[in-house]
């Protein structure tokens, strides 16, 4: 037992010292260079504060940066870190948790999806996993107990990290391209800001075909070109809303699990105009309205009737 603890401790210490020695340089915020064409600034900075809280926090730098990194300057022929080295067909990665098992199971599928995505077809090899999932910062929030809005915000942040930044986009662009902000691009969409709070970017921009019974809050890595994005209001705002197979499916299920049928039905966040319509509620409301207006009308008539009657009696009395 003691030995095991010592071993664990020494691994932790080793990890700390090795990473510290890397961060001596890579902790410099401006460790970067301008690269042509267009004077793009490429950063080599790794923020310790971000790494410490990331999913990879327990790794040593050399676990991914395997060869050619031990000297300054680093060797020309250094190995390029390979995400799939761990995340695919690697039983070492499994720790018995459901998340990791599923991740490993789906990685092949994800890879195929990604290779069909617009990111890959437009940018080829210059766009990899790390552009969305910065390994030095990435935190998988899915297992965490986040509110519905927080989960959406986290998911969208992955996209907006680049798409909200002219600089980032320009660094990646391969052809002449005039940057437009997501607000400009979505000018056609009424209450765009509200939409972004309530749905994920991928809900409209990814290809969900074949994922109707998606149980793991997963979306397809096949991001469609913008022409194929959902643009028809009816696709969400109708009885057959596609959202019921996307983010709201998970949301509803989660609510059911946590709060029971009635509460989930009454208080859930999945209200979407046109989509989550309840016929009985409509009829009930209409009845309420009719009886309310009718009640007032009857009451008014009664008051008028009594007033007339009183006046007649008074006149008769004189």
């Amino acid at each position, binding site marked *: 037992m003691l030995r095991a603890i010592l071993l664990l401790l020494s691994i932790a210490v080793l990890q700390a010292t090795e990473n510290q020695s890397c961060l001596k340089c890579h902790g410099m*915020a*401006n*460790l*970067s*260079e301008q690269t042509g064409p267009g004077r793009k600034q490429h950063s*080599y900075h790794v923020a310790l504060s971000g790494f410490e809280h990331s999913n990879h926090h327990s790794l040593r730098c050399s676990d991914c940066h395997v060869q050619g990194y031990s000297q*300054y300057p680093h060797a020309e022929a250094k190995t390029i870190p390979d995400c799939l080295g761990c995340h695919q067909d690697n039983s070492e990665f499994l720790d018995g948790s459901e998340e990791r098992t599923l991740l490993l199971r789906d990685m092949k599928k994800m890879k195929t999806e990604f290779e069909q995505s617009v990111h890959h077809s437009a940018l080829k090899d210059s766009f990899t996993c790390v552009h969305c999932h910065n390994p030095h910062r990435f935190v998988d929030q899915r297992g965490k107990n986040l509110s519905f809005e927080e989960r959406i915000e986290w998911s969208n942040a992955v996209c907006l990290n680049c798409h909200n930044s002219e600089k980032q986009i320009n660094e990646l662009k391969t052809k002449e391209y005039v940057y437009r902000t997501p607000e400009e691009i979505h000018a056609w969409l009424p209450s765009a800001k509200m939409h972004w709070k309530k749905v994920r970017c991928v809900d409209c921009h990814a290809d969900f075909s074949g994922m109707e019974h998606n149980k793991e809050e997963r979306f397809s890595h096949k991001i469609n070109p913008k022409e194929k994005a959902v643009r028809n209001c009816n696709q969400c705002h109708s009885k057959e809303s596609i959202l019921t197979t996307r983010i709201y499916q998970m949301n509803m299920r989660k609510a059911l699990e946590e709060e029971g049928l009635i509460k989930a039905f009454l208080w859930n966040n999945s209200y979407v105009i046109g989509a989550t319509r309840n016929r009985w509620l409509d009829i009930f409301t209409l009845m309420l309205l009719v009886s309310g207006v009718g009640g007032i009308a009857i009451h008014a008539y009664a008051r008028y009737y009594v007033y007339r009657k009183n006046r007649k009696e008074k006149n008769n009395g004189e």
Partner: protein
Amino acid sequence: MIESILLLLQKITSATGRFLMNRIRKPVTTMAFFLFAAFVYWGVGKFYHAAFEWYTGVKNAPLTYGAFKTESGETIENSRRLTDREFRQTAIEIVLRERKEAVHDKISEDNKFAKEVKLAMHQDLRSFTDESRYKHIGYFEEAGIRQYEGPATCLSCHKNMEVTDGKGHTHKVNTLDNVVNSVHFRFFSKEEGFSTIGYDGRKVNGKGTRKIPIGKIDRACGVPGSFSWTGWAALIETKPEHLHGKKELRSEGCGQCHIGGNFHPATEMMMPIGSVPKVAKEGIDCLICHSQEYNMNYRFVLQDKHGLRWNQDRTMKAAMAVTHPTNENCLNCHQHNLGGDAHEDNLAAKSLGFMNKRLLHIGSKRANVFSKSHDVHYAAGMKCTDCHVPEGHKIPRGTMGTDLVANDLPGKEVSCEKCHTSAPHVKSKDRIMLNGHTERVACETCHITKLDKRNAVLRDWIHPTWDEEEGLWTPTDIYRNGEPSHGIQFLWYNGKGTFLANALGANPNGSDDYNPLTKQLTQINDPKARAQIREEALGIIRKYNLDEEKYLSEAFDVLSQLTPEVRKQRAAEIEKNIRAAMESGKSKIYPFKVFNALMYEDMNNVGPYGGMILPFDYNTYYQTGNSLESARVATDNTMMRRMYQLPFKLYMMDEFMYYFGVPGWKTEYPFDRKGNPKNVQPKWMRQMGTLMVNHGIEKGGRGCAECHSQNGILDYEKLGYSKVRIADLTNLRELKMAR
């Protein structure tokens, strides 16, 4: 308080006006009333100016710029009407010279004669003749302007000008107002925008403070005499060696760089009400900044029947060569505080005056030369205004600054990063690593490797030395050095400074050990430096029969001038008032020119950092070498007397003292009726001042080992690093690998 008085006055006048208007009905009475009102207004103005001149002792009088006779009997013309023929001849002369200079750099020919032939061929070619910058020759020719009469001539066309602000909006403004309200004319600012924190912890003229005028006009800086009233213009009788006993008059004073050619600075403007009179505005020297033919020989002190003032070049020739300001224009004055008066690259020093030649100060203020051979940007053909991008006549000096110099555009950035980005190194194999350093290390730290050797670090004003060559008494520089860790100190800096120009900053690691106000800036411990100071000081120690031990120990450790109690109070105050300002913002390691001076202090108005220093009268100082008498004469100046009276105490001096960390201004005059000093003592400032150095940029910077080695230029311990980190920084594994 002043605001409320003004408000009351306004109320009274408007009430009176209403009362009168209700009673005046007939047109004749109305007219009489308005005439009377105009008369009163005129009379009040006259009275105010007369009263003002009586109170302040300054004087305004019409300024003339006619021909003058030099000592050798030669007559030099100044503002004069040219005949058409002279006008054309002058035009040809200056255009040819311009063309020759333009062509000069384009011809690479070593053989002198061949070069001359090629120059002659080139200068008449169309490609070159079309490019004259002197468009005004044509304008003047057409408009029939043959005489330059100062601002009036310029304003006849440029009454208004368009100013583009930082946001890209264009405004039409009155040119004269724009100039008069710029720092170049008024020498102070009364607005927010100082990057200075008082020793009491308040930001100077910051939000919630009572704003007072601060700038060169009233700032007690390290060079006494620059109280601008006492040191405005002086004619010094010198006895230079080469004249064998004969006397020579020399010009001196801070007015030499002022663009207003008056008898005093813009005194009226720093008062609560009023502006400079019309005659003062007529003295503005437009051409020193705008003419490529400005002859600095016209800049000398002249005496007319009203007093002493600085002459200026008002020749038609200079006016014809008007352009946007070039580096030469700026450096006419600014090389004085960059490279220094006596530096070989100071072009203005080659034209000291047709008469009463200007005195050159040998010890340099920054020793940070801006010239073709010393600065990579200058050599690249860049103009001052490429970085200091003006908005009209307001010129930015950046958002950072330790000194108390007024800033016309305090929010406007002037920085290396603006062009070079935060990843400036693009060629070196270590570029990524070097770029990494920019987070903690300022560009200047590596790209200014040293200052000029004439960099004045310790100056003793009390014990002057006789300068045989010039034939006058000068303050004694007991330490001149431009080397790192001597004349340059490396400090953490976040852009702010104290009221006595100490750079503020903190090690981002949060260490409290970093405290230059009690360490770096108060002690000189380096044995080499100490030896040099001792050697330099021995002359005056012997001459003035000083206690060597005491003199040197005070110079080496300026805090030894304080009692232990005051020292303790000072240390506690720094933690309480200054520490927060040190830790604010983003600090980087910057190089600073350091300086200290032994001066007379009015000990009634002095705190734990320093305080009121007494100015020196130039004539007395230079001619007799009697520093105390010189201080007495200068303090007798009317404006200085007024500062020691109640109105000025309330208007600004109290506030000044709060910033000095002193509870308030004491109006007790420092000399008695007989002229004996009362509580006046020679003192070093209690810490060295630090000035930013940003020019004289070298292309290749320092090598890694200059800092990362055992005996590197950075004192990591004083910079607040831990022992472990120091061991790391001075013994980099990576550095050995790279070799």
